[in-house]
């Protein structure tokens, strides 16, 4: 046994020289052995020789360490009794107390947490269902426009909202559906909806954003308005890369427009669709909290409150930092599992991994 191992070890040192037809010692193996023996010394030596490259890495590492990884350490506060005056390491350990309050408590905080969790899922799920197909449809439409000038005009217009800040978007939304008062009438979109008979005068006059039943629709429609044009870029790129001969072949076979869509376009962009869908599912929980925060008010908490805004209300505005971090911890862990799961599926499904 030990003999065979010694022979195998010795074989590492020998290479077969084809020209002279003899075995000779492999000079590289000695180096490899040396590296193995003094691993860290070699690491240091490599770094010292190439120090400029590693110096370049330092600022980026520091920035991410300080402001992305140190907060994760701060997250340990969710296992502690929150105390503002002490650093997180010195706070009293409380185990899963904060989690227990959120998950099994019977007070309003627990109820609000579950409400926030449900709202997070519902908002992002509806956003996915309604928001996902529209960029694809837009890309199909863009493909119909053969004039480059006209198409870029359409593209410029539809990408535009994406580059406006959340504050601008939400301010516009707030103003356009605002409530009426004695000296002013309701927002112009509310009025248009009323003229179309979709809402009654009283409903519009009370302000759509003050009523919980409209929050989801407003959030999702404004989200589509904001993202659809920009989101269509990916699909449009996939569609224009289809070779024109594919269409010609289909046309010669007598395919109409719908048949071409079904048998030429759809199969060609299917992989893009799958990838984008998986990514979207992966980021299902990371809903833009800024937008919710700017659009909601105490009247609409019941449908609008998401986990991040819940944490903002209790942790930043209130004093329950431990409980707020526990809530975020749970939702972020679920979010991470979703991302990793989605990415694994994407890798298996199509050989393209996003990260």
């Amino acid at each position, binding site marked *: 046994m030990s003999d065979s191992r010694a022979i195998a070890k010795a074989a590492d040192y020998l290479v077969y020289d084809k020209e002279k037809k003899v075995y000779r010692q492999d000079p590289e193996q000695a180096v490899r052995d040396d590296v193995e023996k003094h691993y860290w010394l070699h690491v240091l030596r490599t770094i010292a020789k190439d120090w400029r*490259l590693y110096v370049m890495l330092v600022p980026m590492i520091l920035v991410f360490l300080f402001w992305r*990884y140190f*907060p994760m350490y*701060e997250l340990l506060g969710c296992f502690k009794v929150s105390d503002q005056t002490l650093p997180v390491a010195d706070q009293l350990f409380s185990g899963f107390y904060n989690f227990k309050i959120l998950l099994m408590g019977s007070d309003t905080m627990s109820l609000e947490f579950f409400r926030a969790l449900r709202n997070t899922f519902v908002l992002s799920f509806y956003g996915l269902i309604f928001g996902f197909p529209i960029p694809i449809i837009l890309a199909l439409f863009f493909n119909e426009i053969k004039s480059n000038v006209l198409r870029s005009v359409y593209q410029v217009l539809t990408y535009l909202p994406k*580059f406006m800040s959340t504050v*601008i978007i939400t301010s516009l939304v707030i103003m356009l559906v605002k409530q009426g008062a004695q000296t002013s009438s309701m927002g112009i979109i509310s009025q248009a909806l009323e003229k179309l008979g979709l809402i009654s005068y009283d409903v519009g006059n009370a302000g759509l954003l003050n009523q919980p039943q409209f929050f989801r629709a407003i959030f999702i429609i404004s989200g589509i308005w904001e993202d659809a044009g920009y989101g269509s870029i*990916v699909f449009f790129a996939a569609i224009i890369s289809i070779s024109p001969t594919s269409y010609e072949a289909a046309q010669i076979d007598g395919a109409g*427009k719908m048949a071409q869509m079904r048998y030429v376009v759809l199969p060609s962009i299917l992989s893009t669709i799958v990838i984008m869908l998986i990514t979207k599912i992966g980021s299902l929980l990371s809903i833009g909290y800024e937008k919710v925060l700017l659009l909601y008010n105490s009247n609409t908490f019941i449908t609008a409150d998401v986990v991040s805004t819940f944490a*903002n209300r209790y942790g930043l505005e209130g004093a329950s930092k431990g409980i707020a971090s526990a809530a*975020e911890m749970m939702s972020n862990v679920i979010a991470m599992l979703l991302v990793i799961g989605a990415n694994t599926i994407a890798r298996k499904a199509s050989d393209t991994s996003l990260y």
Partner: protein
Amino acid sequence: MKRKLEISELVFKIISYTLLTVFALMCLYPFVYAVSASLSGINAVEYNQVVLLPKDIQVEAFKRMFSDNMFWNAYSNTLFLTIFGTIWCLIYSILGAYALSKKRLLFRKFFNFFLVFTMWFSAGIVPQYLNYLQTKAVFNKVGIWDDKWLVVIAMGMAAMNIILLRNAFEEVPQEIEEAAIVDGATEFQVLRTVYIPMSKSTIATVTLFFAISRWNGYFWARQMISNGYEKPLQVFIRELLEQYQDPEFTAGWNEVYSPDSIIYALIVCSIIPILIIYPFIQKYFAKGTNVGGVKE
């Protein structure tokens, strides 16, 4: 060979032109409305007589805003944050991405994971807030009293942008770099004279992403900047909006313009810089979203 359009194709063409036009107009309309409403008289705005074009034109709302020192303050603060924030983010992103793009870098997998993990898992608002408070304390100890610098240095990092840069650098042909090294160029010179010029379009895209996220940044700026004179434009707009939503504040309003017009005027002023540079940079957008082929 010209072929006659079939009925189904014609119908689809008509549908796509119509719906696209409707959607494009929908995208444009709120901004047009904002411009019109900011230029219209009080009654026209309050009673929704403005639908598309301004009515009872006045420029008092703009005048009032331009005479407000706080507005110019906020505007210059936003410019400051955008310019310095973008430069700072670009510096460490380009340097880091360059190092990551080198196959010979030790622990390359680890560093990549270090970046990518921040996209998977974020600590959340509360821990981040506590972290920024500590950073603020440290900065104050060092003698940096302006919260602006905290926002510039500690915020706005994006792992995705670094990965975009890294992929662009990886595509630069080896031979050119080797030629530069033979000529005696150091690492920094190679980066400056070979890599940066050869991946101009990606750098432009990433610059754009950084600049837009800086220009639009709101939440953390509002949380961390305590001094009213250092507030950026987005925070200024939001606070003014909250103020004007309060009926008590606007009670006894006696002007030729509506309080809403001021908000609209502010919105217009905030989007004008984006609108001005927008047509020039629009061609870069498509590249930036093309991340499907990102490889590890």
